[in-house]
């Protein structure tokens, strides 16, 4: 006789396998996932595959704005660095900022959403007014203001994106929590003597998590776009050894790549942003159809 706990774990494993089968049935989701795995692997193994010294302006080997050749498949920038190398290393920066900023934003949103819905009344009124305040603030302006006040760098960019993009997820999580809290099993839990912490961690959070998970996947894409925007505007990390796709676009623009006809300088970072955001969106949509509680509990 196996213990109930072991059985519960096996059941979770089965549920995961069933979810994966459902996910695998969606071709776009699978394609997006494959793309993401490839990009993440390339970004993670960039230091093994390539030499970081190629990013050093002083040690650049190519001439300024060379067109694609065997030596530089995507040409070079004004300083003579390989654009392929820059794009590869830019992926590290963009993905890091995207993931961390999305987690920060969803984290804030989830906590505020659950607290507002669970406690209701004054807590809800207070928290939702704060949410509304951040919702009506033009997020780009706030992010710019933040990055100018704080020291420029990766941390500031993450903070700026995280603080400005949480309100929609807070509203979403609040709505989901409200529907969960109306279920009679919450009342049963209270009648059993369960306190706020118990109700939130045992009943509300597990029910809200699938939604949060889907939301995170979708938020990473928009965080990467936000990072590129901030970097393009010159608010990102100024260190040339740590390029991001946004800062590549910025330098391409500053170096008048368009006038020079250096399309190889502009297109790679732009297309990379588009592909990564698309991959995250495809994954997120497929996940949504697997995890959406409305589709599953119906």
């Amino acid at each position, binding site marked *: 006789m196996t213990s109930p706990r072991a059985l*519960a774990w096996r059941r979770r494993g089965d549920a995961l396998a069933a979810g994966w089968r459902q996910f695998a049935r969606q071709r776009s989701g699978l394609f997006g996932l494959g793309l993401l795995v490839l990009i993440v692997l390339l970004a993670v193994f960039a230091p093994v595959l390539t030499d970081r010294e190629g990013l050093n302006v002083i040690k650049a080997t190519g001439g300024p704005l060379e067109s694609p050749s065997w030596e530089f498949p995507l040409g070079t920038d004004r300083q003579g660095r390989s654009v392929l190398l820059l794009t590869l290393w830019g992926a590290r920066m963009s993905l890091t900022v995207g993931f961390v900023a999305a987690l920060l934003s969803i984290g804030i949103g989830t906590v505020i959403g659950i607290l507002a819905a669970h406690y209701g009344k004054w807590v809800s009124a207070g928290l939702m007014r704060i949410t509304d305040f951040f919702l009506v603030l033009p997020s780009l302006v706030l992010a710019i203001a933040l990055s100018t006040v704080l020291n420029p760098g990766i941390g500031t960019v993450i903070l700026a994106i995280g603080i400005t993009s949480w309100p929609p997820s807070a509203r979403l999580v609040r709505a989901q929590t409200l529907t969960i809290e109306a*279920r009679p099993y919450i*009342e049963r*839990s209270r009648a*059993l*003597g369960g*306190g706020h912490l118990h109700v939130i961690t045992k009943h509300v959070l*597990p029910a809200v998590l699938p939604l949060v998970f889907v939301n995170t996947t979708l938020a990473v894409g928009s965080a990467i776009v936000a990072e590129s925007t901030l970097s393009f505007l010159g608010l990102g990390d100024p260190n040339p050894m740590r390029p991001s796709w946004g800062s590549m676009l910025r330098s391409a623009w500053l170096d008048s790549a368009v006038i020079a006809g250096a399309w190889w300088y502009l297109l790679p970072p732009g297309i990379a942003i588009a592909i990564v955001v698309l991959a995250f969106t495809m994954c997120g949509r497929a996940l949504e159809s697997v995890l959406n509680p409305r589709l599953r509990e119906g």
Partner: protein
Amino acid sequence: MALLELDDLTVRYGGRARAVEAVRGVSLTLDAGETLGLAGESGCGKSTLAMSVLRLLPASATIEGRILLDGEDVTTMKWGRLRAVRWTTASIVFQGAMHALNPVRRVREQIAEPIVLHADTPPSAAAVGKRVDALLAQVELPVAKGEAYPHELSGGQKQRVMIAMALACDPRLVIADEPTTALDVIVQAQVLSLMSRLVAEQDIGLVMISHDLAVLASTCRRLAVMYEGRLVEEGISTSVIADPRHAHTRSLAAAFPTVGDPVYRYAPATSNELGLPEPPEPVSAGVEPLLRAEDVRVTFTGRGRREVTHAVAGVDLDVWRGEIVALVGQSGSGKTTLARTILGLQHATGGRVLFDGEPVPASSKGLRAYRRQVQLVLQDPTSALNPRHSVYESVAEGLRIHRVGGDEHAHVAAALEAAELRPPEEFMPLLPHQLSGGQRQRVVIAGALALEPRLLVADEPVASLDASVRGEILALLLRLRAKLGLAALVITHDLGLAWNIADRVAVMYQGELVEVGPVDEVLSNPRHEYTKSLLAALPTTEATVGER
């Protein structure tokens, strides 16, 4: 020629791989002007049978056999013909009037809809208006109510609108699918008498579906009982109920007790081998009550602080150790609010609740300790269990909250054992959706029992369960009382339940207790007008209207 003739009808759901037979080889005939009651538990196929008459089944259903409506086979009808037959030859009063009406349109427009749709030439607005007025008058609704939206009507009024809609095109057959399930006893009696009157006056054939034999017996001349898709018994209502031949009919008949009949006193229908405990000794008056409500008041303030609702308006109620008290009343009488107040889930605006002589604490820490003593059993066990938690986790939840020491596994097993889920190990890993309704309610009860409470507050514990399970759960409550000395406050709208298990009954009306006393006294010799009207409204198997 018969109005409706079903000939070896079989309905299957689902694909080729795993088809479910909902109806299996049913043959029935109904003559014009005749009334037939279709009884059975949920899942027995009675609704499928009724919907198949107008082919209102989902696309996954396949029909075999013949359905002759006025001599014409419905199964082979072309779409256009079917559309014409729907509502003009046969119409349906749908289950749950609150969901079957369009919330954004006036009821007058909704009654007029079939009239306009089925007219050969578009009728004039005045003619339609006149017809709707006549229909409203027929169902005893004031004409002005036609201008109302569904949410402005009470449940009984909505059901009347549904009946008016069904009659709109002068059908020869009306199918009523559980027309009174969601209604109170008094409203149910009104709707039933209205339906019997209309059917008799207009010579309409009526097929009425219900799980309650008493409801069917009071309106229908003939009765057919379905079980697992088959017709197991058919005959004149009175004789079927008086002398049921099939075991399933017997259990259905026994599940709804006759109030006042001593046979049913402390004897809910159960086939459990554990049997029923002896009726308890009457509680001596000198002892301190376990629970005492003193002048409890709960007032809700609406928006703008103008609308004040007195949900509970000064209630005094005692529950002694080992006593089962039934709190009876219509929906909206405040009985659930009172129960929530006793549990400390709702703040009382006035008065106080004493448990074991101590006032119920208001602090969250005190409330937690109090809730080990008093437990709640909710109405609908399906939604009362977290669908993500296994039986084990649901039962252990209370133990974990209160950090009960010792072997958790043994505690859970004992609680499941006490709720008669045997063997406990087999039930522990199951999820709620793998259990039947009765088993789910036992899990909820086991979750409450795990904390060894002294008082159980049960809010309509059997209202959403099937007739055969109902008796089992009630018998369980009686056995728990006998074995553990558990006191229970059972909230119900069902006087039969009070007669089945309760020692004392408290009748609640508009937030006040109008009558409190021993069950035998109150239900045999009611003193208050409201109790009398509740008793008079009970559908009985004896007084059959259909004897014509």
